[in-house]
């Protein structure tokens, strides 16, 4: 945690380490795939082998280094007196998250081999996935805000590219633009935080900043601003209110992408970043985060309750679940947040992949039309059920441990108050929307079973659903003490657990016996309101997008007709002056005479306009000008 631990290794070893940590292989894969057009299978193999190589290096080279808690520093460039360095961090958190990313990505790539079969430009698809993977891995590992920012944006770019992968699909290309721009707003917050921190500490290395913050705790003002700014980045990336609107739209992308980026990995980048820099956050900002995340939890689950699109339900569920993680951090329980991050990644990826399988076979995303999938692909449906149970938080799943932990931590921290009650309510709501989805999918028992179940489809779903079970993390299915992970968590009282389970069960039963919830009346205004995400999108369109476009149009008009005219006016003025002086040069006397003659005419026909001799007029004029000049000088 201080300078003594940071050490420089010799360059060769550095390079080895970096490559060992798996940047190089996926990056090469990305470059290879984006430059060459290959056969579909080959592409798939290339992607898988790149990932496997990366995974291998993670386990073989990275794992042994974890406990040494090391930083690797490469000088990047120097500007002013500051040396910008790329610092790589290796610790437990990092390792677990990396493992999760590797696993999920590998599964998703496997699944894509089935799901994206016979697509055009498949090599681009895998290339972007590999780019995303590289950026994500780097984002997790780097410990310098500047570099973080770079990868933070790069994952956003990869997400942009993948959402819009079907680039002839109108809704997809609108969605990816929206996703990128909203993330850009967050990025501005990140940039602002970078400005503030660099300005304050003259470094962007997180460990140096942490040391400096601890040394002088009286920079609170800048910390307020910095943490508030970075909070914007976090909630934008993690799709929290009020920046959540991009995530449901992002479901227009291919489903494996949704599983990878918009459920398991990229969206939790915000949470991960917050975990890393939570030391910056003053209590007030954490409180703000608490309310924001609680609102997102409730909002996500409520919106999820009325959606009919299976991917949208899952998207809102993601918003809600990430809210749980942020909530955990806001109450100071980083470990629980990390835990929920990991569990959520697995079960949500499983849910998405299963949903992808359903969608792929039925060519529909509407849960009301997918009613026969339980019979159609029973194996997948079982996995789906397991993952759903994890989402709800039933015992024997990993998420039971994490979610219960969070709710309990909230209670144990602040007791029985409205926020905590709402948290419990959200557990109920989660149970409701998940079971609603489940009942729908299980509605038709008459469907015929699918003949072929390719391994590329089954294997990832099964592995991920198994990973959502408790034993991956803990020996004891009900308690948090005996974690495999090096995460220290509180003991949850049995009564509390029971209450939670009861609440969840109540939700399932409620759905089972309340047809209104199962099939909400679509003509109901409230339902419509919720289905459309409370019209927040439209509100933004009206309040921000339209005025900005209008302003741009007005400015363009001004530029053309006012600014250009103003500056151009000088030239025009010159021409006008030219005309005036030309006129003056030849006609002033004529004009003068004519004018006076015109006036005189009103008094009678005494004076008639008469042509004057030009030479003579000129000379008279010259003489008068000379007289004026002489007069002027004396």
């Amino acid at each position, binding site marked *: 945690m201080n300078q003594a631990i940071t050490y420089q290794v010799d360059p060769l070893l550095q390079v080895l380490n970096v490559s060992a940590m798996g940047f190089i292989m996926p990056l090469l894969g990305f470059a290879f795939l984006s430059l060459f057009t290959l056969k579909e299978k080959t592409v798939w193999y290339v992607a898988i082998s790149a990932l496997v190589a990366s995974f291998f290096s993670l386990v073989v080279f990275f794992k042994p280094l974890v406990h040494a808690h090391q930083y690797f520093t490469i000088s990047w460039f120097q500007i002013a007196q500051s040396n910008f360095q790329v610092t790589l961090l290796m610790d437990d958190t990092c390792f677990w998250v990396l493992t999760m990313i590797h696993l999920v990505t590998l599964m998703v790539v496997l699944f894509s081999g089935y799901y994206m079969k016979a697509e055009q430009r498949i090599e681009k698809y895998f290339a972007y996935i590999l780019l995303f993977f590289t950026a994500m891995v780097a984002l997790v590992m780097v410990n310098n805000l500047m570099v973080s920012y770079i990868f933070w944006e790069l994952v956003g770019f990869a997400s942009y590219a993948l959402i819009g992968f079907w680039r002839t699909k109108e809704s997809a290309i609108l969605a990816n633009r929206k996703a990128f721009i909203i993330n850009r707003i967050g990025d501005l917050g990140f940039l602002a935080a970078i400005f503030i921190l660099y300005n304050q500490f003259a470094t962007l290395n997180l460990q140096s900043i942490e040391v400096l913050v601890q040394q002088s705790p009286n920079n609170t003002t800048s910390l307020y601003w910095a943490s508030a700014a970075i909070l914007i980045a976090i909630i934008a990336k993690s799709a929290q209110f009020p920046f959540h609107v991009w995530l449901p739209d992002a479901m227009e992308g291919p489903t494996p992408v949704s599983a990878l980026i918009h459920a398991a990995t990229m969206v939790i980048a915000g949470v991960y970043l917050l975990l890393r820099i939570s030391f910056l956050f003053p209590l007030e900002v954490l409180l703000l985060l608490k309310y924001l995340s609680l609102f997102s939890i409730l909002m996500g689950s409520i919106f999820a309750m009325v959606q009919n699109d299976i991917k949208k339900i899952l998207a809102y569920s993601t918003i809600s679940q990430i809210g749980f993680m942020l909530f955990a951090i806001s109450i100071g329980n980083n470990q629980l947040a990390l835990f929920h991050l990991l569990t959520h990644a697995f079960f949500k990826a499983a849910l998405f992949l299963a949903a992808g399988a359903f969608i792929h076979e039925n060519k529909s995303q509407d849960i009301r039309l997918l009613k026969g999938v339980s019979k159609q692909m029973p194996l997948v449906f079982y996995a789906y059920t397991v993952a759903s149970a994890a989402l709800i938080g039933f015992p024997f799943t990993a998420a039971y441990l994490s979610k219960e932990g969070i709710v309990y931590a909230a209670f144990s921290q602040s007791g029985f108050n409205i926020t905590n009650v709402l948290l419990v309510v959200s557990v109920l709501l989660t149970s409701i929307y998940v079971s609603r989805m489940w009942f729908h999918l299980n509605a038709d028992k008459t469907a015929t079973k699918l003949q072929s179940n390719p391994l590329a489809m089954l294997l990832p779903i099964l592995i991920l659903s198994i990973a959502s079970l408790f034993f991956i993390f803990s020996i004891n299915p009900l308690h948090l003490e005996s974690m495999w992970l090096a995460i220290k968590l509180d003991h949850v009282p049995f009564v509390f657990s029971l209450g939670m389970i009861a609440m969840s069960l109540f939700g399932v039963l409620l759905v089972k016996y309340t047809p209104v919830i199962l099939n909400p009346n679509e003509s109901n205004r409230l339902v419509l309101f919720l289905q459309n995400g409370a019209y927040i999108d439209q509100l933004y369109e009206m309040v921000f997008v339209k005025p900005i476009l209008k302003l741009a149009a007005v400015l363009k008009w001004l530029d053309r007709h006012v600014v250009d005219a103003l500056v151009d006016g000088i030239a025009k003025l010159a021409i006008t002056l030219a005309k005036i002086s030309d006129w003056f040069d030849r006609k002033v006397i004529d004009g003068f005479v004519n004018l006076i003659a015109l006036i005189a005419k009103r008094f009678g026909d005494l004076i008639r306009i008469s042509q004057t*001799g030009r*030479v*003579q007029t000129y*000379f*008279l004029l010259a003489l008068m000008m000379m007289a004026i000049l002489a007069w002027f000088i004396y």
Partner: protein
Amino acid sequence: MNITIGHFLMISAALFAIGFYAALRRRNIILVLIGIELMVNAAVINLVAFANVNKNGNAQDGKLMALFAIVLSAAAIALALAIVVKVYQHFKTINPDEVEEFKN
């Protein structure tokens, strides 16, 4: 009452103004030339009158200047009349207003 230089100068001023009037006002090139001659004559009167003030050494300056001015104006008038004749050949008028072919 003696005749002083002032008297000559007054006459010259009057002739100058009259010549000026003709030169600027009359619509006939020949009258314009007559006006110019009157102006030159005014100057000649000035020069000759002033020659009487400066009797020291340069006494003849003004007179000779006047002489040269007279001769020069004669030459100029000759050339001007030649041009007038030519103008008349082409325009059939000697009103300077009507000699106007250039248009911009």
